[in-house]
């Protein structure tokens, strides 16, 4: 009995009972499709999130006040002087640019349209650090800073809310908390709003903001964005920033009263979360594959009982134990292999539809069907067929010819 014959015979006997074979395959199809789709959605989510984190800028460090792990007494806030110290190339040579930020929320109005948005007081370097492009106008300049000019750069979403358009906005006067501000620029969309609204912002000069919009004592600031010279120097820059701040805050001994986060830390955290999500979804999908496998076992047991006489006859004319075993194992593995292949196609389709639905609802999110997932699903489904086929096949192979021939 060679291999191709065994396969041909298995296909013959499976197609003799098309309805039953189809329904049995359905279990595997659904299982495999679920696994493929879930892994694709997981991979897509991961890409989307890490993509939007890297969209913030490149080689970034974020410095916050306070320590998230330990209790610290007498926390000192971050100030403009801290930011200036970090920007000093002698104290922190691995730092390329520093952008201190104060942030808050404010009501912005224009011609009767009102929007609640997050406003940020920034320095000119903020554009560099965040990789912002402008679609029109200019960014906040040193002159604006010195003059405490009432000027603003709008994010595209905010422009949509206030003006209903994204061009010809420069020169318009809007009111922020009742005070008039002139629009001098419009940011290009950053997209990927998985991480809050990157496009629904109003940027104003730091000096103006602290004086008029967000009152702060002693030049307190909320976050300092620090850009490292290059990707290799990120951890070096992180060390230097921490050292500078320890000196200034006099916390050389004891716990730091600030936190330095790198972009990679965020990416790593996000990846951990999406990995857990993927494993969770994949696990649930794997259970349905398991149930499909039990379906195969069930049907193969029925098939063995139904074909007891045939098995008896095959044994009578010389089939060995192994021949019968191979015959039934081939049937069950083919069943699950075909189911697996169809399931891969269906899973691909589901992933595609999920991507379309996500795109339609405004979340750019592309599910990714990886080759790994396909190989895994094929292997796994065939293995399920083999495993769950083993018991029925063994039962068939172990039948006594005399008993089997007498079976009605």
């Amino acid at each position: 009995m060679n291999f191709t014959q065994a396969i041909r015979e298995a296909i013959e006997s499976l197609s003799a009972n098309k309805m039953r074979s189809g329904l049995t395959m359905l279990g595997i199809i659904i299982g495999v499709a679920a696994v493929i789709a879930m892994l694709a959605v997981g991979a897509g989510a991961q890409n989307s999130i890490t993509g939007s984190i890297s969209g913030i800028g490149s080689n970034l460090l974020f410095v916050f006040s306070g320590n998230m792990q330990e209790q610290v007494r007498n926390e000192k806030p971050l100030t403009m002087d801290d930011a200036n110290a970090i920007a000093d190339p002698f104290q922190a040579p691995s730092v390329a640019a520093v952008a201190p930020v104060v942030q808050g929320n404010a009501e912005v109005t224009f011609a009767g349209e009102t929007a609640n948005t997050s406003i940020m007081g920034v320095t000119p370097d903020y554009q560099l650090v965040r990789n912002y492009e402008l679609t029109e106008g200019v960014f906040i300049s040193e002159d604006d800073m010195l003059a405490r000019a009432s000027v603003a750069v709008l994010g595209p979403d905010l422009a949509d809310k206030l003006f209903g358009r994204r061009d010809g906005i420069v020169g318009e006067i809007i009111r922020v908390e009742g005070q008039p501000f002139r629009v001098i620029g419009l940011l290009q969309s950053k997209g990927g709003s998985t991480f809050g609204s990157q496009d629904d912002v109003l940027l104003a000069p730091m000096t103006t903001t602290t004086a008029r919009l967000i009152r702060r004592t002693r030049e307190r600031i909320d976050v300092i964005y620090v850009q490292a010279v290059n990707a290799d120097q990120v951890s070096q820059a992180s060390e230097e920033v921490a050292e500078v701040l320890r000196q200034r805050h006099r916390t050389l001994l004891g716990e730091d009263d600030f936190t330095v986060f790198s972009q990679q830390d965020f990416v790593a955290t996000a990846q951990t979360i999406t990995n857990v999500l993927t494993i969770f979804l994949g696990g649930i999908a794997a259970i349905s594959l398991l149930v499909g496998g039990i379906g195969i076992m069930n049907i193969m047991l029925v098939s063995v009982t139904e074909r007891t006489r045939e098995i008896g006859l095959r044994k009578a004319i010389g089939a060995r134990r192994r021949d019968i075993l191979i015959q039934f194992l081939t049937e069950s593995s083919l069943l699950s292999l075909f189911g697996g292949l169809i399931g891969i196609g269906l899973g691909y389709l589901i992933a595609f539809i999920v991507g379309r639905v996500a795109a339609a609802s405004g979340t750019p999110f592309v599910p990714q069907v990886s080759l790994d997932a396909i190989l895994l699903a094929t292997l796994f489904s065939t293995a399920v067929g083999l495993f769950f086929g083993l018991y029925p096949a063994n039962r068939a192979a172990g039948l006594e010819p005399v008993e089997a021939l007498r079976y009605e």
Partner: protein
Amino acid sequence: MSAPDAVIRAVELTKTYRMGEVDVHALNGASLEIYRGEVVAITGPSGSGKSTMMNILGCLDRPTSGEYYLDGELVSSLNDDQLASVRNRKVGFVFQSFNLLSRTTALANVELPLRYAGITKGRTDRARQALVAVGLANRIHHRPTELSGGQQQRVAIARALVNDPAMLLADEPTGNLDSHSGKEIMELILTLNKERGTTIIIVTHDPAIAAQTQRTIRIMDGKVEQPEAAR
């Protein structure tokens, strides 16, 4: 008298089944010899051990004790796979209910024993010749469901003969056929014996069938009655 031309030599065969608490002695010291080229009928009332005898002679089952030589080979102590190989090479079965695979053609049915023997070269030709020999040259590609009962039994006989077995073991070969095709099948079996010299054992309780054979072996209470030839 272990003549070299004894295809079957069974010595003091016993077979004991355990049914619940009771031991049932289906065979109780049965001995017999069948020679090459003979046509023999095995008869006996139901419960006599006739079926058990047939199963052991056909290597489907092993005796509890005693020795059984088939074609000079001691087969009573072989394991399952070895028995399968002996059945494949030396025994051709013809069943009352034909036992053909309904999904495959007559040719594929006849090829089956050759497949299990691992023969690939000339397999189709040998199967075709066997079908021609039983008079089904024009039904080679028909499925069993498209054939009459008599034709199906001819396919079964072709399948039994395709491996050139040492003996053909037929269990009530005409039991499921009408009298006309039953007669034809008996004629075919007897012709095959004459032309090919195949040893044939027919298990039956029909005296008319037994009368057409050269010798009748009667089984009674698990023992072989004195052969008629010695009477």
